[in-house]
């Protein structure tokens, strides 16, 4: 297969996945904003969303005030924002168009139709009128795109590069989401900087929750009349889970109250959780093996090691070294892997 074709397929899948993840995060924030909460908390949510995509600076320059409407406009339909749903869907469609002959008719038409319908939705203000429904639609189109790929394409190189793109992007997105959401509760326990008074309260709660399982709960009590924070935590973590379709999965797997370290374990290490880092890397590795060529040994090694680290990792070890540090390193490794794939397969230097 042509390297350029592989490149387009890889990016088509990445952009589609990115559109879905953006929609997921927006949706969760939007749902959260419907709950009674302080303005500061709501704003924190929207800020978190911008920082996940590393867009805080660009947003501040162009929009200034962080309001739900501004963030939504910026992340949904802003053509100048390369990470907006609009930009992602357009890029996915343009990449698909460049290789439409390699795709099955169904895959191409799905991608094309998504872009055409999106334009119509923006034109009729669908994202303002009923954001929840519109975000559902983006997720649905992404499910459809993936489903029609798996359901109709020959499992040849084209297929594998699509899959690699999807899962590499998803790993990246999940890692960012976990990082930012844990950052939002800001705890030394998770390896973050100095805690303020308020943060110390929350830290206490987290510790109390962590210990509650062992029935013994010495030290500062969590239940000192601060029920608001417990409630906040429940909604915070359940929102994180929902944004990766993990709420029901969590209940099924742990059959227990929602606790941050379990959320972290589920989203990082569970091999059977489809949006976890472990599951994503596993898919990346197995698809990479199917397309291996003479020069890709190093890239495969990189991917294999990342996969093994996740496969044999333990959540208490990860938390002990600091979650933020761990995820930062993970994102660097995913990035290096992307560079390797690009060099070995997608844009090889002239032979």
């Amino acid at each position: 297969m042509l390297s350029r074709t592989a490149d387009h397929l890889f990016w088509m899948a990445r952009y589609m996945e990115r559109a879905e993840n953006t929609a997921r995060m927006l949706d969760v924030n939007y749902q959260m904003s419907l709950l009674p909460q302080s303005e500061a908390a709501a704003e924190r949510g929207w800020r978190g969303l911008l920082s996940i995509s590393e867009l805080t600076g660009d947003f501040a320059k162009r929009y200034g005030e962080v309001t739900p409407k501004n963030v939504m406009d910026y992340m949904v339909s802003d053509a100048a924002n390369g990470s907006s749903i609009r930009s992602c869907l357009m890029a996915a469609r343009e990449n698909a168009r460049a290789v439409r002959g390699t795709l099955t008719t169904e895959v191409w038409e799905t991608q094309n139709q998504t872009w055409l319908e999106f334009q119509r939705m923006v034109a009729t203000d669908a994202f303002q009128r009923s954001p929840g429904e519109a975000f559902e639609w983006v997720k649905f189109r992404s499910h459809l795109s993936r489903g029609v790929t798996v359901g109709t394409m020959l499992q040849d190189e084209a297929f594998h590069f699509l899959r690699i793109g999807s899962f590499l992007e998803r790993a990246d997105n999940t890692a960012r989401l976990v990082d930012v959401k844990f950052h939002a509760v800001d705890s030394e326990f998770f390896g973050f900087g100095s805690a303020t008074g308020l943060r110390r309260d929350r830290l206490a709660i987290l510790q109390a929750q962590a210990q509650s399982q062992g029935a013994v709960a010495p030290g500062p009590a969590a239940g000192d009349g601060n029920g608001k924070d417990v409630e906040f935590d429940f909604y915070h973590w359940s929102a994180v889970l929902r944004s990766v379709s993990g709420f029901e999965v969590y209940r099924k797997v742990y059959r227990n109250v929602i606790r941050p370290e379990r959320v972290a374990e589920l989203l990082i290490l569970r091999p059977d959780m489809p949006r976890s880092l472990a599951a994503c890397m596993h898919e990346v590795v197995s698809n990479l093996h199917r397309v291996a060529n003479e020069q890709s040994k190093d890239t495969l090694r990189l991917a294999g090691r990342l996969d093994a680290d996740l496969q044999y990792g333990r959540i208490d070890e990860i938390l002990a070294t600091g979650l933020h540090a761990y995820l930062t390193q993970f994102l660097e490794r995913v990035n290096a892997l992307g560079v390797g794939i690009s060099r070995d397969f997608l844009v090889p230097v002239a032979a």
Partner: protein
Amino acid sequence: MAVGFDEMRGEGGTVREHYRGYDRWLSEQPPQVMLSRREEAEVIFRRVGITFAVYGAKDEDGKGTERLIPFDLIPRVIPAHEWREMERGLRQRVTALNRFIHDVYHGQEILKAGMVPTEQVIGNAQFRNEMRGVDVPGGTYSHIAGIDIVRAANADGSGSYYVLEDNLRVPSGVSYMLENRKMMMRLFPELFSRHRVAPVAHYPDLLLETLRSVAPAAVNDPTVVVLTPGMYNSAYFEHAFLAQQMGIELVEGQDLFVKDNFVYMRTTQGPKRVDVIYRRVDDDFLDPLAFRKDSTLGCAGLLSAYRAGNVTLSNAIGTGVADDKSIYPYVPKMIEFYLGEKPILANVPTHVCREADDLAYVLDHLGELVVKEVHGAGGYGMLVGPASTKEEIENFRVALKADPSRYIAQPTLALSTCPTYVESGIAPRHIDLRPFVLSGKTVQMVPGGLTRVALKEGSLVVNSSQGGGTKDTWILEA
């Protein structure tokens, strides 16, 4: 202008034999059903992405706009016996044209015999010195030819077919022929059970067979690719479509490189030899080392690999010397010269403005004639006398006098019309036909071609870039 010839209705408005079945069916269709079918067709064309890009036009994203070519629901029907005759004529014409191209790059017998003026050929910008003495597989140059045919009314009300133009370089439109049929079968399956319409869907198979048959002789199982200028080219849909239908790679110039006079493409598994390139890039852009240096659409060293016989270009370089409008008037003579046969398909009578007598006549009759630039294409740079204002005619007269050899002139043919959906209902609109002729080991074609229709009332310009539409074309067994 003479009395028109309508494809569907003859004298007194009676429906012609080969249109009767369709006419009966159409009269049974409620108008709102046809209207919703038209809308359905548009939605499907958009979803499938059967669009063409218009150069220069930009939408808000700064990308070239993608437009739909209007598709008309009423088919253009040709009775089988007419097609059989046309097919014979097309074979004959394209065979002679290929012989001509081979000749002008080798012995130049036809020039020596004085049948075609030497300076018309050698002095032609489309004549490629690089091709002199180069042998191409089977001596075939234009493997894919699109021959534009029109029907014009005779004085007695009958119609005759004429060849309007030969397209021997990179003719396009075949994907619309195929997609239009697919659309018609999707919208009106019952029509096809009531009519015996000759199928066209095997065109990609014939094309692939043709391309494989002209591979360099030393290659057993040739690798064939389609070379496109890229996704912003107006015909990109067609390039992608044909590559997909044939199951071969669609490459851009940047995907190819030449090493030791062989052409390779860059793949995920390393370099792969390429043997036949169905190129949809003009000669000028094929190789920056040989032609336009600023071209990024081609591949450096391609010409050298080609001349060494290590790769086949389809169509060959330099075919433009035979489809130039200044050469067109000599095609009937070519047929007699090379094949010793009388031409089956007629040319439109043509005045060559470089000849003093012809020029004088043309200047006297500008108001009645169609004057065309010999190197023009796409319906640009021409004067349609009867449809032009005095001022336009006078402006053109100046240009023509300044450089007569740039122009030819033809009588304004009353192009035949075909009933077509327009805003006010169904009305006659002018049409033409482009059949696609494939020349490899043998000459083959699918029955039919692309029918283009000028949607503006009275307009004779069918080009899609100027508001033309298309129709499905039926070759109908009685």
